[in-house]
């Protein structure tokens, strides 16, 4: 009993770094086995060749990467970039006024409103997108309502269009944009804005000359935190896009689950991860304070 107590106490006291590493080792091992090794495995797999019947032939070549920039797949990559860019721009434009309201105007409702913003984030995206399918479908709520009130004479094809994909992406990623924006607006000393008023600036001048420039770190953080996960999004196009508007995530998924071309899928995933890590690295370097 005494030895056990002493051993555990040694572990907790952390006077030796071995104790710290030992306490961290189960979690670190878990991450290495289930995250780092699979990621390295994908890189190795991306250099292999696809054999007959979905087998893997180990080799060292870059054919899979060459295939990724083949005219057959370039549109998917470009579409992914375009959707991620458009989502980011829309989330910033739509989200900035909300972040501003939360920071400057919400008063005692602020806490509740922030929690309310997080709730859709915590609810299952699968379920939310299903509901959007019910709303936007051919016989969906929106079409039924528009037909009944005579605004249209035939149902509109809204679902499975670029519009429905963009709507789903904006719906899901809006909180990712608003929270960093809100965070940087909160950091602006209110006295700066008041000083601008005292010096004769109007509402808009004070906003454009003081508040907006000071919130730029939040704009960039919010943009990156939206753009980067958008690149790897899978569920939105899977449910709201249909096969014509597949994004990179869906192309990857198809290589693994349908085409059974794992090496090519691994190459696409490696490209995705490299792009994300590059983006985060650039952000870290630029970031003025964490």
């Amino acid at each position: 009993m005494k030895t056990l107590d002493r051993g555990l106490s040694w572990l907790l006291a952390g006077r030796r770094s071995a104790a710290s590493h030992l306490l961290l080792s189960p979690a670190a091992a878990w991450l290495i086995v289930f995250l780092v090794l699979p990621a390295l495995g994908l890189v190795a797999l991306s250099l292999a060749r696809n054999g007959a019947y979905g087998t893997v032939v180990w080799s060292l070549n870059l054919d899979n990467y060459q295939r990724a920039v083949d005219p057959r797949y370039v549109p998917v990559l470009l579409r992914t970039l375009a959707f991620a860019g458009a989502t980011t721009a829309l989330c910033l434009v739509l989200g900035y006024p909300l972040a501003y309201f939360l920071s400057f105007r919400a008063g005692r409702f602020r806490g509740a409103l922030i929690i309310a913003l997080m709730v859709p984030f915590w609810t299952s995206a699968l379920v939310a997108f299903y509901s959007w399918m019910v709303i936007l479908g051919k016989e969906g709520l929106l079409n039924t309502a528009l037909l009944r009130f005579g605004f249209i004479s035939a149902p509109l094809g809204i679902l499975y269009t670029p519009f429905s994909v963009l709507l789903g992406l904006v719906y899901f990623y809006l909180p990712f944009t608003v929270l960093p924006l809100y965070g940087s607006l909160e950091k602006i000393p209110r006295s700066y804005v008041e000083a601008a008023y005292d010096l004769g600036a109007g509402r808009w001048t004070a906003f454009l000359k003081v508040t907006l420039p000071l919130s730029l770190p939040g704009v960039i953080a919010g943009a990156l935190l939206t753009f980067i996960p958008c690149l790897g999004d899978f569920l939105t196009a899977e449910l709201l896009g249909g096969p014509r508007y597949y994004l990179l995530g869906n192309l990857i998924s198809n290589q693994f689950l349908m085409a059974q071309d794992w090496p090519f899928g691994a190459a696409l995933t490696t490209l995705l991860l490299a792009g994300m890590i590059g983006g985060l690295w650039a952000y870290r370097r630029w970031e003025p304070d964490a």
Partner: protein
Amino acid sequence: MKKGRGLALYCAGLYAFLYIPLAVMTVFSFNNAHRNVVWLGFTLKWYARLWKDADLMNAMLTSVELAAAAAAIAAVLGVLASYALTRHKNFHGREGYAALLDAPLMIPEVALGVGLLSFLVRAGFELNFGALACAHALICLPYSVGAARARLKSIGGERLEEAAMDLGASEWAAFVKVTLPLLAPAIVSGSLLAFTVSFEDFVTSFFLAGIGIVTLPIKIYAMMKFGVTPEINALSVVLLAATFILLGLNAWLAVRTGEATRL
């Protein structure tokens, strides 16, 4: 203050956009119509149908077991790691460990899914419940670490533990008698978040669930492939209600311990 009101109205519109799908689903789960989206009266029959569906109940049970296993693994790993990260001073690599522990939040779920799929299959492992639980524990880990770290930082540094040790307790005794009871609400709260993350996860399970493992989100997805039905509305509301209850419990705990856990 006309301008201020315009902004408030705009924000109300944005919140409506965020909540419309949840509201529509809830309303139509009580609608007595099979095929269309016109209100034909109140019914509970879709819920009754869920209750009678043995496959669905099995999927529910699988999801609960999976989430419990993942949250438990994440809680143990998370508490050990958080303790070292917040209490230990003399070791190198703290930043590296912290970045590694946050990595599951950053990696796209598709990449994680296909990475684990190819890794486990090529290493000769079976894609069974255990493998899926391990993967879910991974995506849950940042939440249990986050909750435990925040609490360990806020419960007065090392002073309370030092006081216990001044009174003759060993480090271990101080941990069990002082730290652990103070940490307990954060462990529960982190585990609730972890449970929610696992319970709702679709993408990771989609890639890793071998034949025979059907979680609730996978079941919902399979039903969706056959088209829009009122049962899915009801099932979605059940999932939604579970989320709200778990988040509500978490908020209640946060109020009781006087601190907000990061959501």
